[in-house]
């Protein structure tokens, strides 16, 4: 199997399913509108574009939430998406929300600070969700969900996520197809939580590489040995498997200690679309 080839998707089909899914799943719960946090990166650019196509740009609110040290080009790239999709927009800087916390805990390292920023953005998004009467559309892709490269209750928080089953390399393909500006697709991915941060620098491998490995491990159900036989370095395989396992807690709801005969999460089973 050639995983690079297997990762290539029919973007027309993906676009059709995802836009219809967004429209259906938002409207069946009585909403017409959506809110998207726009970072200037390719993931949120894609989610925003799909939402605009699904609901009409007038029904989508893009929210830019810079911190004082955020890269200015992040803000500008988000502006390109707003321009290209014609969605509504608001900018809510988070500096005044998080700086008092950082002043209280000056020893906080950059991971703590980054997490607090991601969660401050979540607060803004869900507040705008109420104000705009729109559901928060998620922007996490399959690669970061599997690797746990995300802040729990931060950037991973949303009402529904159209791109969570697309690997980063597939996000890029679909982004290209729906007209996300080239400069956004081609730049180095970054959470922009501190200056000079890049995903691939922090993770220590490229999305192209890890997507191929994750495809074999997760989608094609290869054993670790099978991945090594397919040409991946053993330490790389081990490290990725460890990341996936260690971050399972970010992919599930917190467990509830079972006492009664019927417990939410175990034997009280209904879809969210119950009755709709």
């Amino acid at each position: 199997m050639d995983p690079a080839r297997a990762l290539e998707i029919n973007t027309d089909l993906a676009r059709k399913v995802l836009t219809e899914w967004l429209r259906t799943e938002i409207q069946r719960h009585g909403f017409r509108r959506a809110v998207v946090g726009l970072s200037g990166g390719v993931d949120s650019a894609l989610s925003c574009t799909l939402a605009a196509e699904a609901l009409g740009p007038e029904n989508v609110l893009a929210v830019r939430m810079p911190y004082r040290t955020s890269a200015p080009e992040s803000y500008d790239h988000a502006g390109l998406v707003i321009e290209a999709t014609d969605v509504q927009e608001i900018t809510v800087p988070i500096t005044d929300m998080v700086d008092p916390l950082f002043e209280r805990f000056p020893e906080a390292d950059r991971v703590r600070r980054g997490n607090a920023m991601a969660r401050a953005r979540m607060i803004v998004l869900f507040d705008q969700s109420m104000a705009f009467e729109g559901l928060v559309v998620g922007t996490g892709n399959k690669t970061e969900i599997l690797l746990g490269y995300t802040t729990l209750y931060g950037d991973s928080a949303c009402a529904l996520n159209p791109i969570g089953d697309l690997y980063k390399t597939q996000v890029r393909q679909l982004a290209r197809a729906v007209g996300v500006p080239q400069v956004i697709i081609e730049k180095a991915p970054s959470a922009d939580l501190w200056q000079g941060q890049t995903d691939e620098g922090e993770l220590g491998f490229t999305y192209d590489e890890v997507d191929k490995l994750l495809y074999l491990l997760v989608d094609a159900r290869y054993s670790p040995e099978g991945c090594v036989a397919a040409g991946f370095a053993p330490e790389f395989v081990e490290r990725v498997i460890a990341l996936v396992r260690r971050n399972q807690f970010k992919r599930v709801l917190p467990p509830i200690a079972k006492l009664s005969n019927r417990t939410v999460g175990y034997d009280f089973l209904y879809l969210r679309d119950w009755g709709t």
Partner: protein
Amino acid sequence: MPTLTLALAQITTRLGDVAANLEKHLNLIAEARAQGADLIMFPELSLTGYVLQDLTPEVALRPTGADPLFKPLLEASKDIDLLVGFVEAERRHRFYIAAAYLSQGEVIHVHRKVYLPTYGLFDEGRFFAWGDRVRAFDTRFGRCGVLICEDFWHASPPYLLWLDGADLMLFTSASPGRGLNQEPRLESARWVEQINQAYASLFTTFVAHANRVGFEDGLNFWGGATVFDPEGRRLAHGPYHEEALTLAELDLDQLHRTRARLPLLRDERTALMQRELQRILSTDQE
């Protein structure tokens, strides 16, 4: 020339809202009738929605005129034959994924799904009882057989229906779409269409498939209704991922023409099959 005008309804449903789904059925039945259809088939669990989980006992019904939600369907079947999907509650409170064939105000046949997928994203065995019959039945268009989704992912139920005399196989699904690659249809769609065409060819019979559309939580259902003739040729194809009523004209004389040329049914060695199957099942398999 005996022809059957078959309507395949690929619909989205409201999860657990039988009354709302019934209304959609009645509207489509009227539309199919207006278009001259003799038989309209609805997808698996068309009256209830698919991922029912703990809703299962609440939406279950008995397919008789005594049920207020089933009665209008029996009424409607006076003008056009119907195949509808529902949860059947039997007398002793076991729940089945079922499909009922209705004609002239009567329930002619009920099929209870015999294969309940309980793997991967599927969890049917947790909520439903397993049907244990595969039977063909007579209709005014000839002998038919009904199977539901996973039933026809296994080769034996279609084979049994073939031997039991079914010349028209009516397959229904609520098939979650999965397997996005470079192709213009999902892997699950390719697979189902491939095996439907294979059954039509292998059994020199008509094979019709109605699948639902829409979404339930993150799942999509892909539609793409098909009818294949006894030559394995596709007579009709519904669109993917959208609601549609697809009509097909089945020239029932094609059975004669195909089987005169290709006597696969005549030559089927059922006694040999039975003998060998008995041997295989009685031998210790390691």
